């Protein structure tokens, strides 16, 4: 597959080896919607999916004479995110107007933060290099701003449709240092960041729903060079893998330009996921003149030290800490730990089961196995799952105590998933409780042996392979309720006697 360089300015993914001579430098700007009930500057609901323009009011419609009043919870969530990203939180920060014209920007300016943001100087640890060195991506800043509405271009033939429900929803913008050196690192950054923000419980962080959006800045420089090359901005990526592919494509394009002795133009590129290519956005090159100035309708945001300290103290357990704790407290291996800490809810569920049941490994296996399979099949999240952790723990107790067989347990579990009933109830109802009482088992064994004297004799004389046959008969006689493990033991003991 040859690179089709230059045609319509598009570069296809999968190009020449010229990229080896260059290093990719990536910075990411991530916009995250904060999960508040109301908007940043007015009491309109932030509910997703409402009829167009139904969540609007004089303020977010920018009617003449309206004023913004900031949502306290948005400040709290933004601060929590900044602390989780190890930033320095500035007790005084200032809002600013970013002025530009667009139909989904009602005021003709966005209220954001410019030179006095909420937080600066943090870091996100995204894993280790092959050699085991930790990779930390610097966080330049975290600042608060409001979202714009939505422009829909293909609903009506001759017009663009504007829906301002999203206008005014509170966002944080997380800007990274240009510390990433590959598309894979960018992907790791995004996955780690999303997980962290989930654990912090500040956002739904769903790219599909638009509560997490990514813009990338990417440049190329000859390997060994320390100065940064000219960067371009890449937009319109709808998934993490889309980000990775877009970065590869743009990097390849820039390398092509540099290899030919050209210079990279500073511009905005749009990712076309369907075609797998980047192309220039049809707007003038160079940066827009946003004429930032401090927002005169909002005094400086002043955070009390005690308030910030409380947020810090009440921070939920973060992924890294939880991974360490699971490994230590539950003696789980790395794979299990990664799986069980993938989302905060799964980890909480697992712990609920493990703490009650006691056997962490069994709990882990069930959560990673049966529970996850059930969630996938039902298309639900763990928060809508009908099997409570205590009940799964109880089921595992029954297995451990021999009251149900492993296969019976799976059947019981399937029913619990549908009904939410307790395991003992289901087991009794379905007749799946095993008989573990030795006396009862002995009785059935006696019956089987007396009904099959020839086989009984041969078994007693050493034909061990008849054990399975005899156990099977005991199982039939007990209508499946005998604990096969115990039957085997008793039968073997008889033979030995």
């Amino acid at each position, binding site marked *: 597959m040859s690179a089709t360089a230059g045609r319509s300015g598009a570069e296809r993914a999968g190009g020449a080896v010229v990229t080896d001579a260059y290093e990719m430098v990536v910075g990411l700007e991530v916009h995250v919607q904060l999960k508040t009930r109301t908007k940043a500057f007015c009491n309109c609901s932030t509910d997703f999916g409402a009829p167009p323009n139904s969540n609007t009011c004089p303020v977010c419609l*920018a*009617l003449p*004479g309206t004023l913004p009043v900031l949502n306290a919870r948005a400040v709290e969530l933004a601060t929590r995110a900044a602390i989780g990203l190890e930033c320095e939180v500035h007790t005084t920060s200032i809002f600013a107007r970013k*002025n530009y014209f667009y*139909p989904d920007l009602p005021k003709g300016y966005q209220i954001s933060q410019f030179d006095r943001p909420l937080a600066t100087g943090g870091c996100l640890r995204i894993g280790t290099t092959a050699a085991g060195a930790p990779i930390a991506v610097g966080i330049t800043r975290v600042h608060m701003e409001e979202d714009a509405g939505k422009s829909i271009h293909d609903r009506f033939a001759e017009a663009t449709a504007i829906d301002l429900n999203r206008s005014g929803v509170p966002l944080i913008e997380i800007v990274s240092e240009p510390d990433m050196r590959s598309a894979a690192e960018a992907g790791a950054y995004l996955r780690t960041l999303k997980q962290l923000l989930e654990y912090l419980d500040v956002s739904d962080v769903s790219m599909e729903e638009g509560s997490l959006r990514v813009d990338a800045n990417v440049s190329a420089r000859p390997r060994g060079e320390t100065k940064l090359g000219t960067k371009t901005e890449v937009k319109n990526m709808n998934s993490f893998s889309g980000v990775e592919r877009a970065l590869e494509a743009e990097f390849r394009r820039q390398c092509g330009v540099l290899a030919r002795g050209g210079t990279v133009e500073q511009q905005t590129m749009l990712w076309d996921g369907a075609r797998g290519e980047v192309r220039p956005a049809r707007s003038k090159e160079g940066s827009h003149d946003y004429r930032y*100035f401090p927002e005169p309708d909002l005094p400086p945001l002043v955070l009390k030290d005690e308030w910030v300290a409380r947020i810090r103290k009440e921070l939920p357990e973060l992924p890294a800490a939880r991974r360490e704790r699971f490994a230590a407290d539950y003696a789980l291996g790395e794979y299990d730990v990664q799986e069980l800490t993938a989302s905060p809810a799964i980890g909480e569920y697992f712990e609920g089961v493990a703490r009650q049941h006691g056997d962490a490994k069994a709990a882990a296996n069930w959560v990673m196995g049966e529970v996850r399979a059930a969630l996938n099949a039902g298309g639900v999240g763990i928060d809508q799952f009908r099997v409570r952790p205590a009940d799964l723990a109880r089921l595992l107790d029954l297995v451990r105590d021999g009251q149900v067989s492993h296969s019976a347990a799976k059947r019981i579990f399937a029913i619990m998933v549908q009904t939410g009933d307790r395991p003992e109830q289901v087991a009794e109802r379905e007749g799946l409780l095993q008989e573990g009482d030795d006396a009862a088992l002995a009785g059935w064994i006696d019956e089987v042996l007396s009904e099959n004297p020839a086989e009984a004799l041969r078994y007693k004389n050493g034909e061990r392979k008849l054990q399975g046959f005899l156990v099977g008969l005991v199982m039939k006689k007990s209508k499946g309720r005998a604990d096969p493990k115990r039957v085997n033991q008793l039968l073997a003991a008889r033979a030995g006697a």
Partner: protein
Amino acid sequence: MSVDFAAMSAAHLRDAVAANEVEPGAAVRGSFARSGAVGAGRDGLNAIIWADAARSTREADALAERVNQAQGSRAPHGSGRELLGVPVAVKDNIATLELPTTCGSHILEGYVSPFEATVVSRLRRAGAVVVGKTNMDEFAMGSSTEHSAYGPTHNPLDPTRVPGGSSGGSAAAVAAGVVRIALGSETGGSVRQPAAFCGVVGVKPTYGRVSRYGLVAFASSLDQVGVFGASVDDAALAMEVLAGLDPLDATSADVPVAPYRATAHESVEGLVVGRPKEYFPESLPPRMRERCDRALAALEAQGAVVREVSLPHTDLAIPVYYIVAPAEASSNLARFDGVRYGLRVQGDGLRGMYEATRSAGFGPEVTRRILLGTYVLSAGYYDAYYKKAQEVRGLLAGDFAAVFGSGVDVLFTPTTPTPAFRIGAVSDPYEMYLNDIFTATANLVGVPAMSVPVGRIDGLPVGGQLMAPHFREDVMFRAAYALERALGEEAHR
């Protein structure tokens, strides 16, 4: 028996209504009658540009219910009777639910706000009745009310002259006796200057004293709703009703509202009145100087002490004002784009619509100021202009802090250099801006200020300006009451 409502203070009127001596709708009817008689509407003085007599009268009559709950004539704050039956006019940049809010602009022609300004809600809660929206310079940008899309307003004392601006319509409505109380807005002197030109009282409160929610923004860090009164007492009463914290305005102040009318008969013995020399320059016309010094003498006769002081950075106020205000305005007026409300003019695509709408909708002064404001905020110029101007503002604030900190209770200056000029006489933009020379500092620094009539020059009113420290409207009113009392009829000669 016909009552001359124009001669009855708002407090007396509401007392009479509350005591059932006067029908609640009587003064409102009187207001419309007076408006007709003096031609305050669009075919005359053009002070009141939108009105609905039937609706206002119905609203007034419905106040009868509140009268029945009234016990005696005292109307404490929040009683719903502070302005019972009192007709008021409202500047057309303040949002009202039934009458249009056009800001004197073509771009909002026919726009009726679907929400009400906090100040209007407070007036109505106090029993006042809005009898009309008043004319203004477009988007409050002007000092003469000649820049309205709905024609100029004429000064009732001399219809060939301007009433001042930008709140010229409200000033004229009070001067013509149509209402005793009218709302205006202040950004650089837009209440005080027309008050001086029309011979009425005009008050700009401390920045943050009165809610801006519902006041269409011109320059957000300077804007305040202001009040015109036929007398100091009318203005003080209105201020008591309007002032106070509003959770819908993050710049409104959580400071208790003093009972301003309680200062009505307080002595000014020992009150230190500062006379800043920069406001009495060589170039000040002699008769203006004389009227102001006469006013100061009147205060001295009451026991006040006049002291020469200096506000050294005064001459920087106009350059600072004409950078900060247009800059903020250029941003505040970006929302007038034809998308969600107001005028829309088709053009070539979206960009064409924006440009066609805004060029058709904005007048030349607004266009000029948006350009100026956009320029001083633009890349490469922000530091030299906007940022610098904001820093100089700090110097101006320092002047006031120093003077007030040295034992001066209030300042007294002329409100304007001259009385009202003729319509069409001033065409150079910068010359028009100089009208704000004595008033703009108070907006830039945020201190309360008011204009009180102090005499006439060739039959035209002139005003004297009082300024007090932040949130000390009480001291300012005390001095104003005393001055009004001391001058008596001289204030109108």
